[in-house]
């Protein structure tokens, strides 16, 4: 009797363990409909800053859509990790979130994988072209269809020390000359700091140099094309900065924060970075407060340079039902409206992707720095818009790194990069 009981108990425990797993799935299904309202889940990375204004923005959506219960879920702050999360969950067909944020280089990849919904019906491409800057629109259109809507953006810019150089340099030649002149007067001063470590930031620096030398990363038919003269010139220029001492050898180990700290300590004349560094430079205890200017990156020919476009877009999970997709599109419209752009700019210093917002007097008064970025934002360019971007980014980072660190010549590095890219994307097959 007792023994049979034990046997039953063991069996029972096994069944219970299995059942608990199933029940877990069941329960979440039920709670979705429990309140009689539609649950809409928004996956995003926390915005640094006061939580109030953003919460109010979300609350307004709920008030305007009484049938919707809006739930926000946080993502890891690092872009890498967020990408990994979406890769695993969307590949597995997850439908437990509706609206997601996507980094600029993910949209074509996710669209091609069939993970994010075509939003052209809600946000026609022509409409986006009319309302947003060209760079961010290019980044969200895949084969002429809208797959995401720009939320806020980022752009590579040049910081310079107003007290050390006569004006912002317009050409690469000027940048090097100004830097040398300032360095000659102050021993121990570095010339130009940027991001040369093997990671995505290095690729951004390389593309900027590529565009500044008149090059393009994508050739005919969307084929990634790097084994070309402007690319060799661009890498040669970056390596030359290190070799000639205008940039310290150590930039090959720098990401954003390492370069910012050198610049912030007042130990460099120029810095390439994103707009976030401005706020840091202007803090009360900053040694360079009031001495810093910001300008478009220089180019070979002297026209204002093109900074790499960064930032985030909102997309809809293609695995959710059509009704929820419609609601999700409505939420995106709400979060990317000019009003919402203004909330994000005023409270979180996020650059609006709409030109019209930059003319808003409130923004000009409260955040003159953001308003002043308009020219640079206007010329922000996305990295190659191709579904293969993430597939090839890794190869490019390593070859760019080899060229910048002087392990291979730019010619060799680019040739190797091109071979590997062609192999990966299979264009030769």
């Amino acid at each position, binding site marked *: 009797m007792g023994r049979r009981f034990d046997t039953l108990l063991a069996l029972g425990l096994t069944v219970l363990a299995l059942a608990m797993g199933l029940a877990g799935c069941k329960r979440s299904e039920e709670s979705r409909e429990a309140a009689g309202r539609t649950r809409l889940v928004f996956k995003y990375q926390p915005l640094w800053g006061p939580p109030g204004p953003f919460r109010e923005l979300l609350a307004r959506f709920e008030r305007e859509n009484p049938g919707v219960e809006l739930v926000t879920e946080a993502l890891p702050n690092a872009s890498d990790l967020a990408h990994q999360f979406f890769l695993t969950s969307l590949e597995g067909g997850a439908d437990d979130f509706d609206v997601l944020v996507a980094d600029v280089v993910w949209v074509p990849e996710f669209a091609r994988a069939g993970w994010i919904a075509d939003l052209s019906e809600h946000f026609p491409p022509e409409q986006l072209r009319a309302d947003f800057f060209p760079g961010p629109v290019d980044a969200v259109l895949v084969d002429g269809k809208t797959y995401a809507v720009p939320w806020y953006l980022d752009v590579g810019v040049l910081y310079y020390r107003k007290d050390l150089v006569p004006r912002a340099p317009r050409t690469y030649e000027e940048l090097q000359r100004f830097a040398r002149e300032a360095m000659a007067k102050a021993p121990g001063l570095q010339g130009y700091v940027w991001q040369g470590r093997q990671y995505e930031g290095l690729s951004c620096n390389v593309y900027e140099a590529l565009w500044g030398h008149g090059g393009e990363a994508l050739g005919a038919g969307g084929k990634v094309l790097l084994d070309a003269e402007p690319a060799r010139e661009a890498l040669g220029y970056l390596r030359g900065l290190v070799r000639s001492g205008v940039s310290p050898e150590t930039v090959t180990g720098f990401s954003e924060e390492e370069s910012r700290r050198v610049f912030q300590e007042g130990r460099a004349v120029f810095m390439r970075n994103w707009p976030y560094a401005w706020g840091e430079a202007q803090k009360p205890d900053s040694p360079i407060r009031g001495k810093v200017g910001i300008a478009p990156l220089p180019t070979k020919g002297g026209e204002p340079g093109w900074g790499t476009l960064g930032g985030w877009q909102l997309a809809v999970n293609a695995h959710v039902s059509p009704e929820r997709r419609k609601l999700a599109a409505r939420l995106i419209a709400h979060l990317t409206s000019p009003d919402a752009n203004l909330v994000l700019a005023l409270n979180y210093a996020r650059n609006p992707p709409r030109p019209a917002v930059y003319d808003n007097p409130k923004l000009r008064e409260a955040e003159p720095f953001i308003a002043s970025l308009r020219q640079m934002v206007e010329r922000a360019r996305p990295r190659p818009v191709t579904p293969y971007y993430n597939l090839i980014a890794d190869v490019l980072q390593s070859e760019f*790194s080899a060229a910048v660190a002087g*392990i291979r010549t730019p010619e060799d590095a680019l040739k190797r990069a091109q071979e590997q890219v062609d192999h990966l994307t299979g264009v030769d097959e």
Partner: protein
Amino acid sequence: MSTGGSLERERRQAYLLVAPAVLVLAGVALYPILAAIWLSLHRFILVFGERRFTGLDNYAFLLSDARFWAALGNTAYFTAVAVTVELLLAVPLALLLNRAFPGRGLLRASVLVPWAIPTVVSARLWAWMFNPEYGLINRLLPGNDINWLGAPGYALHAAILVDVWKTTPFVALLVLAGLQGISEDLYKAARVDGASAWRAFRSITLPLLKPALLLAVLFRSLDAFRVFDAIYVLTEGGPANTTETLSIYAYKTLMRSGDFGYGSALSVATFLCVVVLAAVWLKLLGREEGAR
């Protein structure tokens, strides 16, 4: 009711009782390994939207993949140097900790601090200390212009240093446990025979410590071979992949590039390397045990 029947029933019952644990273990440990092996036999690249069985194609490519061999070389070098240095430092440290002196308990606890800090945190800390422009290391060194994390040759050694700093205490603790198993009588006898301290160390301590040392080498080399977090935080595998280990290569291929087939093949290859390494050490360890 016969005794045999009851034994039989008891056995069945035992199986049933461990069944939940076995099921959970199979799900948690076995399934991912089998899934990875299965995936590695496919061409499964996310952006191509294709998933087809290709047999051993990924492994054929792996054998001709220069990046794989470079990563394997980096991993082996990292493991060999890190573990050797850790052992060389840990033995004297353990001898010191084995002595009786005031504050020994406190010292024993405090040497474990580096080991207790999460690797990602300590790697981040070291990344700042290695910063060539304003990091502590270059300020302490004369000449102070070493490009620790940006120059090939230096970066991997910087990573080794971080690993040594972090895990030497752990090795020392293993060695200390071995030391405490050696009977004090042996030393007393050696003293009576007039042996010098060095002679006692060579003829008593070292041979009796061998199993503990081998165990430490086993643990550490298996661990070091899978190294990911410390190097990823310090360099992400740069510059020019000179610090890329097998785990980092596999991670990048799987999670960044979305090449699940080849990424899995790389993971399986890493797994096989670790298995071989473990088999070799266990064999050595077994021989040691048998000899005694």
